């Protein structure tokens, strides 16, 4: 094994879980996540000699993020997306006592799933990766203004979701009950 391959191997084995989780949050699909990471790693390996001394992780993450929002998927193209209507259950009846927070997190996850890929990517990069607006813009290849406006629209959409509004109503009612 060459020194380059050894270094690349260490990088991959060390960073694999984080990269797959990152891709999973960007896509919402574990299989696509692994595909994205594989493709990004293959691309990285082709240019390893150039990027190894710079910041290979940033390079791979950029490739993963761009891949997630692009239509040039590694294995498939998604022609259209349809909401998953039938999975919606009565959250209150499905929620055991004390599981309100979990239900809210589930509701957020479902709403994230139906955001457009670019909007979802901005949410993940800004709120989970903790990238700055400038860093997010660099990763996604857009302006800082676009990042700000996209995040603003994403939070508006999340806030407007019926599930979250309903859960917020349940919480408010519970809080009122406790207060009494």
């Amino acid at each position, binding site marked *: 094994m060459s020194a380059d391959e050894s270094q690349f191997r260490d990088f991959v084995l060390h960073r694999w879980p984080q990269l797959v989780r*990152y891709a999973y949050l960007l896509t919402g699909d574990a299989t696509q996540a692994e595909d994205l990471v594989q493709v990004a790693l293959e691309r990285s390996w082709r240019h390893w000699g150039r990027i190894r001394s710079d910041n290979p992780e940033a390079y791979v993450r950029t490739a993963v993020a761009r891949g997630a929002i692009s239509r040039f998927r590694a294995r498939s*193209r*998604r022609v259209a997306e*349809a909401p*998953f209507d039938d999975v919606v259950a009565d959250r209150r009846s499905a929620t055991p006592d004390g599981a309100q927070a979990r239900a809210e997190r589930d509701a957020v996850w479902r709403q994230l799933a139906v955001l457009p890929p670019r909007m979802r990517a901005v949410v993940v990069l800004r709120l989970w990766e903790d990238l700055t607006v400038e860093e997010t813009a660099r990763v996604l290849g857009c302006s800082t*203004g676009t990042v700000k406006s996209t995040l603003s629209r994403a939070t508006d959409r999340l806030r407007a979701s019926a599930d979250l509004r309903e859960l917020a109503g349940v919480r408010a009612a519970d809080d009122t009950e406790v207060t009494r």
Partner: protein
Amino acid sequence: MNDDDLRLLVRDSLSERAEDLPAATPSWDRVRGGLVGVRRERRRRQALAAGALALLVAVGVVGVQSSSLTALRRADPANPDGLRVAGDPAFGRTTVGSLGRDDAFLAGVRREVLARGTFVVETLQPGTGAGDLTVAFAGDVGDVRLVLVEAPTRSGPDGDIDTFLWFSAPRGASATAVVAGEVSSEAAGATTQIWRPAPGGPATAGGTGAYVVLSRIPGSVVRTATGPTYDAGGRQPWSVRTVPAASDHHWEVAVPWSDRFVSPMWTSGPEGTSWSALDPPFTDGTGTGLLDGAEPALHSDRPARDAAIESAFAAAQTASGVPVARSTRRLLWTGSAGVFSTSVVAVTVPGGAHVVTAVREQLEGDNVLPVSRSTVVLPAGPLDRVAMAWALGPPDEDGTTGLAALGPVGATTMTVTDDRGRTSSETLIYEYADASVVNPVTVEFTDLTGATLARVPVTALEAGVAPPTG
């Protein structure tokens, strides 16, 4: 809920999902094999034979109770609401498919699998016996004999795992020939398996291919959409039908290559059902490439020869669903500004309609990273009359949007109308211009005399192929 609360909730939700995902580091051999697999898959896609998009298959899941992907991936076949016990076969111990009761054939498959031992990058665990192999599917579909085996395989120092092995051979092949034939492997763990047709594969030799789905997710649905890609008017007359289940957990469809198709990628998450498709065939088996014989840009005479243009052609070809040999391509416009490159290409399908795709990409060394893409389908007509206006990115906070437009040959000015009826004009160069406009709605192209040549709506960012309907 205020902004801070919401963002905290989003962060918690994402963290929880990330932590739930079993993303154990695979062995280096496995990763390296995966990299090989990526290349193999790409070659396989490129080898897809020529034909028009005619069959689109969608696999949908409805009624899934759990919202946890992890739980779905571990669902017990015998008890979908519970957790799968490690080592249990993903699809139970009963073989489905037309050969499911052919005990002699199934025994032969097990015997040959044990004798072969190594498949792609997978090796059976030492001590594996016939009883450790589960033949989940065996049958003839179309002109293909398919066998799906779940087998315990080695995964290097990080532990052992189960692997699905798909074997394919011509219909009627013996167990020996099947196991000696084409094989593809995939890590077990998910509760779905899909065999996607490969029209160029030796198992089909141009006959009728097979599409097979096994799923243990409750309420799974398989639908197909067939039809020509686009007629002369740019419409897609899809015919959608639900595939009847062949058993309580499998579906199979014979795919006539004369109809052509794009097959789906399974998405097993509870978030939604989607229509999706493999890349269309880019070659016709004769080595015809996307840029082979490509003429210079219609609007600027710039040559059609770099990676960004090829990428744009690939996007349009994908959107058209028509292979290279049955369509024509033309670079309409291309240009670069800084590290960004924009190309507009047209793929004309047999019906005469034009699939026009505008791609913006960022050049980074030898790499081409996609930035945005928009596609419109225009009715049959001369290519020099094509007009398109598209958003280059999402709008800023005040609605300011990067807008690009390509007008018909002879257009010299574009006039943009916004959502409040206000207008602004830009001079076109080679019939192209881009600008920043607040909430643009339509673009009108005029020539030197002021005559209107075309008026088009602004295409949304990343507009793509319309979903099948019906």
